[in-house]
């Protein structure tokens, strides 16, 4: 009897939780604040500055969503999450969206019951070595000692890569990125491996970056994107199309500088529809007409965000590569606004 009461309560709680999360948009609007899960600190992607303002590539996604939904890119509560806490924080409703360099994988999408709303950065695992090692390709790393962060997908990718190429390696287990850099600099390992974006940022921070090279091979696919809880399609749509709007804005030449002017009407009907001059796309996702305009004004279109946070003009200096528009040979391809 008592057990059944307990189970009943549990079921009711779960139902209630499911019901409440079915209207994330209403919750966010009522709260007047977007709870956005970000990394506790990843160079270029999410980091607080000396005044505690969060900045970075992933943070810009939070700002665009908040601008589209609430009309104010500052109405965000940033919830720093670790790789252990991120999924529980999202599943339990503590955060509305997780924008934390999270790889889109099959099991995360299905088994963990999340919905990835797109890809904001196509990453992949690479290697960095000392230049005087004389290695120019990852295929020459047979017998090398490799610094590798334990408990991550990179560890598994590394094992796969060396197995496929019939090579042996000696792993040097490290806990954090900072520790890995320290070990690599101290010569504890021949090669350091992590996501290519992380390697670039790490190398940029070395005292003498020119003594180190990043090998050309990328050994894994790491599509990083924002994600939301499964079961609230409207909220997922909003997040998906905010990201698409940022990508499309770059394709059509809509920038934070000219968005105000273009929203008054152009001769490109696609831009007009996106910025709310023609039709009413916003109503279909529960927002007003200007949602995309505000999203782009928050920190610019995809290209502007990339250039300001991780692009070639920043110390991190990442090239667009796979993250260029499809018209430029990259993978960014927004479905039409129609």
């Amino acid at each position, binding site marked *: 009897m008592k057990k059944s009461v307990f189970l009943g309560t549990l079921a009711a709680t779960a139902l209630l939780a499911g019901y409440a999360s079915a209207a994330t948009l209403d919750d966010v609007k009522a709260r007047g604040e977007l709870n956005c899960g970000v990394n506790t600190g990843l160079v270029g992607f999410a980091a607080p500055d000396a005044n505690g303002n969060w900045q970075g590539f992933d943070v810009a996604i939070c700002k665009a969503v908040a601008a589209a939904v609430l009309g104010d890119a500052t109405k965000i509560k940033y*919830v720093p999450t670790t790789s252990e*806490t991120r999924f529980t924080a999202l599943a*339990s409703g*503590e955060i509305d969206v997780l924008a934390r360099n999270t790889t889109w994988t099959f099991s995360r999408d299905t088994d963990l019951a999340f919905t990835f709303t797109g890809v904001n950065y196509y990453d992949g695992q690479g290697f960095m070595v000392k230049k005087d090692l004389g290695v120019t390709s990852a295929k020459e790393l047979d017998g090398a000692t490799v610094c590798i962060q334990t408990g991550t997908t990179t560890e598994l990718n590394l094992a796969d890569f060396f197995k496929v190429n019939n090579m042996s390696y000696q792993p040097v287990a490290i806990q954090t990125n900072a520790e890995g850099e320290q070990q690599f600099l101290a010569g504890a390992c021949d090669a350091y491996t992590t996501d290519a974006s992380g390697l670039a940022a790490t190398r940029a921070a070395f005292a003498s970056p020119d003594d180190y090279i990043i090998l050309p091979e990328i050994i894994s696919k790491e599509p990083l994107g924002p994600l939301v809880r499964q079961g609230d399609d409207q909220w997922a749509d909003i997040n998906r199309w905010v990201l698409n709007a940022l990508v499309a804005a770059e394709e059509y030449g809509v920038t934070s500088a000219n968005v105000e002017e273009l929203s008054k009407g152009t001769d490109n009907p696609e831009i007009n529809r996106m910025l709310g001059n023609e039709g009413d796309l916003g109503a279909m996702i529960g927002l007003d007409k200007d949602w995309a305009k505000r999203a782009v004004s928050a920190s610019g279109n995809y290209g502007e965000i990339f250039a300001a946070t991780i692009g070639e003009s920043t110390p991190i200096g990442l090239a667009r590569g796979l993250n260029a528009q499809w018209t430029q040979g990259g993978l960014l391809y927004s479905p039409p606004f129609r």
Partner: protein
Amino acid sequence: MSDLHSESVAFVRDTMLTPQSPPASQAGAIKWLRENLFSGPMNTILTILGVGIVVYLVNLGLPWFLHSVWNANSLAECRSAITATWGPDAHGACWAMIRERWSQFMFGFYPNVFYWRPILALLLLFVALAPILFAEFSNRLTIAGGVVAALVVWLAASYGEWLPVGILAVVAAIAGLLAVQGTKWPHNLIWFPIVYAGIAFWLLWGGSIFTPIAALAGIVVGWLAFRILAPIAGNIVAVTAAVVAPVLWWYFGSEPVIDLLSRALPRVEPFWLPPVDSDQFGGFVLAFVIGLTGIAFSLPMGIVLALGRRSDMLLVKALCVGFIEFIRGVPLITLLFTASLLLNYFLPPGTNFDIILRVIIMVTLFSAAYIAEVIRGGLAALPRGQYEAADALGLDYWKAQRLIIMPQALKISIPGIVSSFIGLFKDTTLVVFVALLDPLKGITDAVRASIEWKGIYWEPYIFVGAIFFLVCFSMSRYSMYLENRLKREHR
């Protein structure tokens, strides 16, 4: 006449031999060295080895410290400054990072216009600790009081706030009044620690002043219930009422009263402070809030648990043993994860149960279980005669505990209790696993994630470690002082 007689005048020596210095091998530094460092072949080898290690470490670290840079805006600037001054191969510490991110290490994301609030809370903490930590008045205490008062005035002046001086004046006035009535310093401040809990909460989190006042009023309600019911209905009923009445007050009575009062008065100081969210706490403010609250609440809870474990009542004993063994059998990180993540699944959606409060509860429970065992050790160390003597005097259970058992048991347990406290304070850094920005790793990683300071490694650890050492070492020194003062055996 014999010669003997003329020679019989007593010999009086009028000059003393000048004392000779002892042989070189039996005095001074050489003797000390021989006795302590080179007393045998084994010790000689160990000494040489030790000196070698020290020289190696100093050689490794000293240039790094000597080449420190204090003024720079990024790690790259630090490096170029070191290269410019000390040559291209020199390595140096870049303390400029601490300088630039000092406030982040101290306050986390606390709004910088309100920095005076945590600082004032810290200064008032010293006032609150004085009557607890020091039983006798001394000149040093006067000096310390003067310094705190001066700092409060300076704080008020530099932030343009009159509230710090106001609070200090009220505290001084009440303490002075009690002193005039004959209570000795610092006993006339003994009420302040309880009030301090409310003041510190209000200063740190802000909001209406009536929230902490209503919470503290619960204690008064409980005390009144006890005083009124004790003569009428007996002790057991009165104690039950003293527990139930405050809970009822907190649940039903306080909300409307807070509402009414905060609406009746304008939202200005001293009735209202702008609220600060828990997610803006970080760095040492967070470590101190969690650590000190944990310390303050885990000691009484530990005492109760220890008594419960030794109780004859089966249910009480079973509950206490179960609690202590469960908590001690589970790692603290598990409890923190439960508090931050699992709890959200079970609470109704939308409930915003403050994360810092959740962490504080878990840390307190964890520490209380350990302190309970430490105190149980103290209780077990008391000779049986002490208990029997208390019974023979006709004291009831609580009086016996308060007057005879506890003062002795606690004195025995001081080193253990203080180690538990030090452990608890250091464990506050574990909150980084539930994504709170502790000073050691949370803030450090956040700082390292900025482009300017990426690649910095030792400096933040050394800095944070030094502050932790300072706090923990003070606690340990105080525990030694207390042990000495309470020493009764050899008088």
